[in-house]
C-alpha cells in the first residue's frame, strides 16, 4: 500500500496549481460571463448567481482569499450544473463541458492553489518581510492534482468506449460530423477522403484509450502531452467545443512534476533556480 501513502502524502511546488487556478478562472469568465450578465435575467435568483459569480471568480483569478473563493466558486458551479442545469437547462449548463469546469474547480479547491501567483502570496510575502522572516514557501499538499488526472483520464476512457460502440474506426461517424458542420448533404466521396476520416477516427479512439494511463507515465509525457494538445487544438478549430479544449490543455499541468514546472518558470523568468522547498 506504499503507493496509496505516496498518493495522499504527495507534496510539491504550488506554481502549477496556481497557473491552473488562473487558467480555469479565465475560462469560467469566457464560458459564463456573458450568460450571467445582469441584463440577461432580472430574476432575484439569477441576480444573486450573477453577483456571486463575478465576485468569487475575480477572487479566484487574482488569488485573493483563495481557499474561500475556490469554495464559493465550487458551490456556485454545483448549483448551476446540478440545480439549474438539470431543471430545464436554459443555458446548456448540464452539458459535459460545464461538468468539466465544475469538477476541475472542485479538485483545484482541494489544493493550496493560492500559494503561487496570487494576491494572497503577495500579502504573505509582505507580512513576512515586515516581520523579518523569509518569504513563505510555494509548497503544499498536491494529492488532489491526481484527481484532476483521474478526471481527464475518465473523460478520455469513456469517450473512447462510447466511440467504439459508434463505428468511429470506419470514419462513418466522422462523416456525419462533416455533413453536420461543413458539407451538408453533399458529402465528398473520393477514396482518400473516406480513408482519411477512417484513419482519423481510429487514431482518436486509440489515443483516447492510451491517454488515460499514458499521461501518468513520466517517460511518455514528452510524446503524449504534445499529441494531446494538438488533438484539443484541432477540436477547438474544427468543431464547436467552446472552452472545453483550452480547459483540458490547461489541466494537463496536473500531470507534470510540480517541481519541474517551478524550475521551468524560474529559468523562463531568468531567476536563479533554487530549491522549491
Amino acid at each position, binding site marked *: 500500500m506504499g503507493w496509496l501513502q505516496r498518493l495522499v502524502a504527495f507534496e510539491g511546488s504550488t506554481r502549477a496549481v496556481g497557473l491552473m487556478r488562473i487558467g480555469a478562472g479565465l475560462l469560467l469568465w469566457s464560458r459564463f460571463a456573458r450568460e450571467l450578465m445582469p441584463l440577461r435575467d432580472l430574476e432575484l435568483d439569477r441576480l444573486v448567481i450573477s453577483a456571486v459569480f463575478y465576485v468569487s471568480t475575480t477572487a479566484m483569478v487574482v488569488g485573493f482569499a483563495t481557499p474561500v473563493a475556490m469554495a464559493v466558486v465550487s458551490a456556485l458551479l454545483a448549483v448551476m450544473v446540478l440545480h439549474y442545469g*438539470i431543471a430545464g437547462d436554459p443555458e446548456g449548463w448540464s452539458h459535459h463541458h460545464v*461538468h468539466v469546469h465544475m469538477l476541475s474547480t472542485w479538485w483545484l479547491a482541494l489544493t493550496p492553489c493560492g500559494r503561487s501567483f496570487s494576491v494572497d502570496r503577495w500579502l504573505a510575502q509582505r507580512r513576512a518581510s515586515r516581520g523579518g522572516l523569509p518569504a513563505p514557501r510555494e509548497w503544499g499538499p498536491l*494529492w488532489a492534482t491526481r484527481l484532476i488526472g483521474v478526471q481527464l483520464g475518465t473523460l478520455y476512457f*469513456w469517450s473512447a468506449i462510447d466511440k467504439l460502440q459508434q463505428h468511429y474506426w*470506419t470514419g462513418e461517424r466522422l462523416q456525419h460530423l462533416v455533413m453536420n458542420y461543413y*458539407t451538408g448533404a453533399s458529402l465528398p466521396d473520393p477514396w482518400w477522403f473516406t480513408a482519411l476520416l477512417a484513419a482519423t477516427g481510429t487514431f482518436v479512439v486509440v489515443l483516447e484509450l492510451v491517454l488515460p494511463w499514458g499521461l501518468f507515465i513520466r517517460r511518455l509525457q514528452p510524446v503524449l502531452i504534445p499529441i494531446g494538445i494538438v488533438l484539443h487544438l484541432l477540436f477547438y478549430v474544427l468543431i464547436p467545443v467552446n472552452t472545453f479544449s483550452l480547459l483540458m490543455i490547461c489541466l494537463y499541468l496536473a500531470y507534470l512534476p510540480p517541481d519541474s514546472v517551478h524550475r521551468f518558470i524560474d529559468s523562463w523568468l531568468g531567476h536563479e533556480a533554487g530549491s522549491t522547498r
Partner: protein
Amino acid sequence: MQPVHALRLAVFVTAALYMQAGPALKTGLGQRAPWFTTPWRMYHSRGLDQCKMEVFHTPPGGERREVDWVALLGRPWHEAPHIGEHADIRRYVPTLCRALEGQVNVVTTCAASRGYKRPSLTAGLDVCSLPKMGR
C-alpha cells in the same frame, strides 16, 4: 496512516467513484445514469440527423452519371443544404428537374449510430415524373 491522509484517501476514492458512476452505468451497462452524474459521451448523437444525397442523371439516349447537384442548385459546395430525411428532397427536386433533361434519380443515405441506414430505394425512380416534382 495519519488521520489527515485517511481523510484525503476517502475523498479521493469517493470522487473517483463519482466520476466513473455516470459513464459506467450509461455507457458500460446501458442503464440510466443518476441525474447528478455525466456519462462523458462526446458528440454522441451529433450528426445523426444528417443524410447524404446523390443525384444521377440519364439524358435522352445517354448514359447515367452522377451529377454535382449542389452546383445545379446554384450554390457553392460548402453551402449544400442539409437533408434530414428522404422527403426533404422535395425542396430541391423541382430545380434539378428544370436544369436536367431526361431521367433524374435521387438516392439518400441517412446516418445511424453504427454507420448508415440502408439507402433509399429510389435509384430507379425518376423523381421528375412524380406529381408536383417534375418539370
